């Protein structure tokens, strides 16, 4: 059951003594300088060097109290979760800081694998932090993790084909039809493969239509009319000329490649597509523009699903107080800025979106912030994995969606998934 972290006030007087004692306990510090405690940070593998840089910088800033060892998890999200789950189920005391996908805190908190953030540490962890990001790290009203980076999708389009970006899905399909009739590139690029990305698409549409996938207490499916509308939007795209022929196999990167190849007019994707277009297609880049995610109905702006990573302190860590300090350092302003500029991941600190360093390479920073401010959160439940598999399985392929019937099917499957009954495919 959830453990409450008894955080010391910062610069705890006992810190020096603690670190000496702790390093004696660990014994195998390795890489530590003198009596510094070696904290293990498990996070997604980062090739940009931003995460290693943050780990090194925090170690130096700690005045020899701790060093942070950055352990790279597998590349795929499933592999990352499996490794963390196995370690935590085995009560691994060497996991001090965990980099969790925004969909995992509920599960890890319910299992008692991560510590709650309370008191002054909670204040420091949530100050200046985006609201939706904090919500992803919250489970049953308690904070279990600290938002690290954030992420969200925008509508990317070519202004040589589309002078004014569409505000709704219906407008976008009409534009695509017009372009197709004129024999111009007209495809809409979106994640239609049977995986997590399909759940994200569905979640964005359901919440944009004013509904939700689960009831607020996360005990039952909500769905209803907004879900039928959402499934209808997905089917309408898949059945129109705007659909990419390989829609049922497409993930974010295939979308990016299709847009860069010049066959598409629209793309719904994360901001990583921007630097990529700049590097790969300088000819198309001047026409590569962005706009808010299209709405389902004109009177209600879209609520786009938030993504990102939350950092948590392991329940079995031998140094929970130091780990919490280190966590706050890892996600401080400077490290988040480096991560945004080097690693290309949008920060979770609101004030960073106004700094010139960021806006210089993120010209769309204001739109990302606006999207994050109205962002929706994926269904929060310890059974998220099963719920997501049920959604992706039922709504795949998008061209085969029968809105009424599929939503009814989904209701039963989500009910089963929440009770972790039955098999997953």
């Amino acid at each position, binding site marked *: 059951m959830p453990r409450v972290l008894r955080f010391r006030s910062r610069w705890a007087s006992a810190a020096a003594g603690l670190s000496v004692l702790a390093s004696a306990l660990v014994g195998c510090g390795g890489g530590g300088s003198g009596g510094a405690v070696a904290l293990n940070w498990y996070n997604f593998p980062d090739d940009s060097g931003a995460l290693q840089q943050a780990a090194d910088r925090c170690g130096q800033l700690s005045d020899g109290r701790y060093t942070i060892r950055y352990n790279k998890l597998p590349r795929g999200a*499933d592999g990352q979760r*499996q490794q963390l789950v196995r370690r935590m189920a085995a009560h691994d005391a060497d996991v001090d800081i965990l980099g969790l996908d925004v969909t995992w805190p509920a599960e890890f908190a319910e299992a008692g694998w991560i510590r709650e953030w309370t008191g002054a540490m909670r204040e420091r962890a949530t100050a200046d932090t985006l609201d939706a990001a904090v919500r992803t790290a919250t489970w049953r009203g308690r904070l279990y993790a600290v938002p690290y980076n954030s992420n969200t999708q925008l509508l990317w389009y070519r202004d040589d084909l589309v002078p004014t970006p569409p505000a709704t899905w219906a407008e976008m399909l009409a534009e695509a039809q017009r372009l197709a009739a004129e024999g111009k590139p007209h495809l809409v690029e979106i994640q239609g493969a049977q995986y997590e990305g399909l759940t994200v698409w569905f979640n964005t549409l359901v919440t944009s239509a004013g509904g939700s996938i689960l009831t607020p207490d996360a005990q039952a499916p909500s769905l209803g009319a907004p879900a039928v509308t959402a499934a209808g939007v997905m089917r309408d795209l898949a059945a129109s000329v705007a659909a990419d*022929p390989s829609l*049922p*196999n497409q993930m974010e990167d295939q979308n990016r490649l299709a847009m860069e190849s010049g066959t598409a007019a629209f793309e719904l994707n994360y901001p990583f597509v921007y630097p990529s277009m700049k590097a790969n297609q300088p000819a198309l880049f001047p026409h590569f523009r962005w706009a808010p995610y299209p709405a389902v109905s004109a009177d209600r702006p879209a609520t786009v699903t938030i993504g990102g990573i939350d950092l948590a302190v392991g329940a079995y860590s031998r140094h929970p107080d130091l780990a919490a300090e280190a966590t706050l350092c890892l996600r401080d302003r400077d490290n988040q800025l480096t991560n945004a500029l080097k690693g290309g991941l949008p920060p979770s600190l609101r004030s960073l979106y106004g700094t010139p360093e960021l806006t210089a390479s993120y010209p769309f920073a204001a739109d990302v912030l606006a999207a994050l401010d109205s962002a929706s959160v994926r269904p929060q439940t310890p059974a998220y994995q099963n719920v997501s598999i049920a959604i992706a399985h039922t709504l795949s392929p998008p061209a085969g969606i029968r809105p009424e019937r599929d939503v009814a099917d989904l209701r039963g499957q989500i009910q089963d998934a929440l009770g972790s009954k*039955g*098999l997953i*495919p």
Partner: protein
Amino acid sequence: MTPSTKPAPVPVPVGPSRGARQERRLGLLLCAPAVIVMLAVTAYPIGYALYLSLQRYDLRFPDQAHWVGLANYGAVLTSPFWWQALGVTVLVTAVSVAIELVLGLALALVMHRAVFGRGTVRTAVLVPYGIVTVVAAYSWQYAWTPGTGYLAALLPEGSAPLTEQWPAVGLIILAEVWKTTPFMALLLLAGLALVPEETVRAAMVDGASFGQRLRLVILPLMKPAILVALLFRTLDAFRIFDNIYVLTGGSNGTGSVSILGYDNLFTALNLGIGSAISVLIFVCVALIALVFVKLFGAATPGAEPERR
């Protein structure tokens, strides 16, 4: 030789001699480490899987584990996902083993008859078997992925065979066949060595064509080797995991029963259901072995070789 094998003294003792008893005890002692290791690494996990399969057990909430009897087996056997995965597994097993048998026999005959470069031929045939399955599977995966693969480039624009059910199952079978035909060929080559050269010559003198010699002389004499090869390969193929895991991850209806068990154990963290699936796979494998041994009379490893 131990001293106890010396001729016994004149009065014949009742029951086994002291020496014989000592020898038996020594034998048991010598066996004991192996038996203990076998119990620890085989019997214990099997027993533990059985025990878990009778519980509602979520890895995240070990405190809430409780007995549910056979409910997990009921859930698995009434799930369309199990039957779908079993169908894919049986299909992949049957088709790949059949193709491997034919190709393996052809390769074995070539290796057996090769007059020059015998070593080179045998090495070349064995190369695929020497490559780690996962490495080979990744090569196939890249080869069939549009944009990165030379084989995908040969297909019509926009086709991604690994993302559709039937093409993907076909490619999984292809990867399996490519990988394990050498193993089949090796076992069959050993079987060919059983066929006495004189018998084949005699058939030739009697005017039997190659087809007749193969069908009426060589294959019947090779039967024990063929059955053992089929048994090994069927058991292996039924447990297929690595090729599917790398090639498709089991998506789009290409998952085998092992993939289903893995997903339920490690993604859903449902130890009860996952263990029930593992036990059912174990039962299927045992049934396959039983059918081969009892119905076809395959010699079990270690049993007395068939005398004819």
